[in-house]
């Protein structure tokens, strides 16, 4: 159904199979009869799968499920398969330009050339058609160049900020997370 589940750094393809009258899951392409019944206390569930009954406790935070099963907590993250595919296909790194969405003037330049900035950080404010727009960092990166200065006017499509992202980021973080999981 478009979700993969990440357990201990490994991705698993699990999706419901629509069979009238009973619950059925496809796990890595194999079919299983499965039902989830509510337990007596909040978070408690009885999972019936392939004829076995197991008691589990589940806490959900966003797309992350913490599942307590047989004395251990497992962190399972639902990852949108399309989102994952897009990220995997994105070359990442390299140079990037933030261009003016419309003609206007520079109200304020906040970032400095060479600065490391984080996703969403305000780099510059521009004004056009009486409306101020914040130019922000699309992701964690370094400001390579700011070709316009305060008060300058620009046309639609002009470069406002040049960014660069070191290549080695990318998959590092997920491995780090996996390490952290193992150490738990």
């Amino acid at each position, binding site marked *: 159904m478009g979700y993969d589940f990440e357990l201990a750094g490994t991705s698993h393809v699990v999706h419901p199979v629509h069979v009238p009258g009973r619950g059925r899951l496809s796990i890595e392409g194999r079919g299983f009869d499965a039902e989830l019944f509510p337990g007596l206390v909040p978070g408690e569930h009885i999972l019936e799968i392939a004829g076995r009954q197991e008691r589990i406790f589940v806490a959900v935070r966003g797309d992350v499920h913490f599942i307590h099963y047989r004395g251990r907590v497992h962190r399972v993250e639902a990852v949108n398969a399309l989102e994952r595919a897009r990220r995997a296909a994105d070359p990442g790194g390299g140079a990037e330009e933030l261009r003016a969405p419309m003609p206007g003037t520079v109200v304020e330049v906040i970032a400095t050339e060479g600065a490391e900035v984080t996703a969403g950080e305000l780099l510059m404010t521009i004004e056009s058609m*009486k409306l*101020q727009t914040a130019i922000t960092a699309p992701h964690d990166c370094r400001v390579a160049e700011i070709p316009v200065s305060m008060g300058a006017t620009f046309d639609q499509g002009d470069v406002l900020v040049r960014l660069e992202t070191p290549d080695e980021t990318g998959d590092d973080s997920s491995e780090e997370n996996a390490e952290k999981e193992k150490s738990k």
Partner: protein
Amino acid sequence: MMRRIESRIDPRSADYQRFDEANRERVGEFRRRQDEARFERPQRDFDRLEHHGKTFVRDRIKQLLDPGTPFLELSSLAANSEYDGDAKSASVVTGIGVVSGREVMIRADDPSIKGGAWYPLTVKKNVRCLDIAIENRLPVVHICDSAGGFLPMQADLFADRTDAGRIFRNQSILSKMGVPQLSLVFGQCTAGGAYIPSLSDYSVILRGNGGIFLGGPPLVKAATGEIVDADTLGGADVHTQVSGVADYAANSEEEAILLGREIVSMWTRPEKTKIEMREPEPPAYDPEELYGIIPDDIKIQFDMREVIARIVDGSYFHEYQPDYGKTLVCGFAYIWGQKVGILGNNGVLFSESSLKGAHFIELCDKNRTPLVFLQNITGFMVGREYEAGGICKDGAKFIMTQSGASVPKFTVMVNGSFGAGNYGMCGRAYDGRFIFSWPNHQIGIMGAEQAANTLADVKIRQLERAGETLGEAEIKAIREPVIESFARESSAYYATSHLWDDGIIDPVDTRNALGMAISASLHTPIEEPSYGVLRL
């Protein structure tokens, strides 16, 4: 399964904190004004109600509704800027609620204000409420308790196309469409007011307080010399036993309301229009964060996706053409399990954004998906390059497809609504089913500053032709009154006072208001798509 919007808001940032404070203050002000309009009356007015054995209009509605169900009140601040603020909520309460398991429109006169007399804006609100009933095929329950038209202002409420006569015309059309109406007559319905129960398919009249007559006792005496008391002239027993003007008599308001609930429970449930539905789920992001997203200054731009993420189910949003015409965000989402196509402004409308909007509207219209417009628009882009690029004809395509769309349309005034942007984005003139506004909202033909500059420029050029020049003080004297009147008349309170919308709502209630509005709209079948001629 769709992807979630990834919010980029930082609740610890200074901007977020400042916006949050400003918006909580705005919402606090809105709640204060709304509470005042709903519940505050001079003690003597409450005493008079009690003396006549009448319950307050809000309590009547509460008794009528199914317990524990929501009531979507419309235009709670209508008339707030007129008549010295006397006509609270325009002296009539309207809204959509659930009675005996059916979604109905409720229209209840408020006798605590000048005997429930109808001001011009009361008439406008009544007509709007019945227009909504017609467009959405909603049954209506009237709680009648009005002294009739407010005579000192009769010229502004009687004779025109959308004046008082329209109320009775709308009632007749509803009946013709097979949409039932019930009147609970809790006060005297005199003159035109007599037609409200008379034009209802069902009516319950209260013994004692209830009365229906074309001319009340004083008018009868003046006209024919006949001396007759109100009860003999048009009381419950006359009308339910002799004239057949009303259907049922009741001895108390409680009895009448319970009888009314039983009558509604007899109505045939309408078949609703089928649209794409799925199991509802709350947004993944807290709607209260909307307070930290809407800037404290209308000049500051924000990302409409952040608003969408806090309105739609699971914050799931399938964005259409994400890299084209980026100043108009278009995409599919679900609101309370009902699939919608959303168009939200992320800046000025360019040719590309207009074309994208027109294209997206056609898509939604073809696949029977209701449209939600989130307005924050300063207008269409101006300048030589854009005129040469045909922004007028591209804007026209957007307006043409939006006007022609057959699917139900809903508009939320999120921040600014200026110039032709209001038209493209389904402003009041475009017959959207409902328009709701946030308290920070501003609306006008142009911004106050631009209007002041334009008028000052015109004046300066006139004088230049006469060989004169204007000093700074004189220019200021031209600009300031313009800015002042524009600021007042472009506020959300002025707009809602004049029924340019269906009410101001707290931003966190947007999802619920839209959810109920969309559900109500599905009582009406959706016509086949058809459009006018597009200037290609």
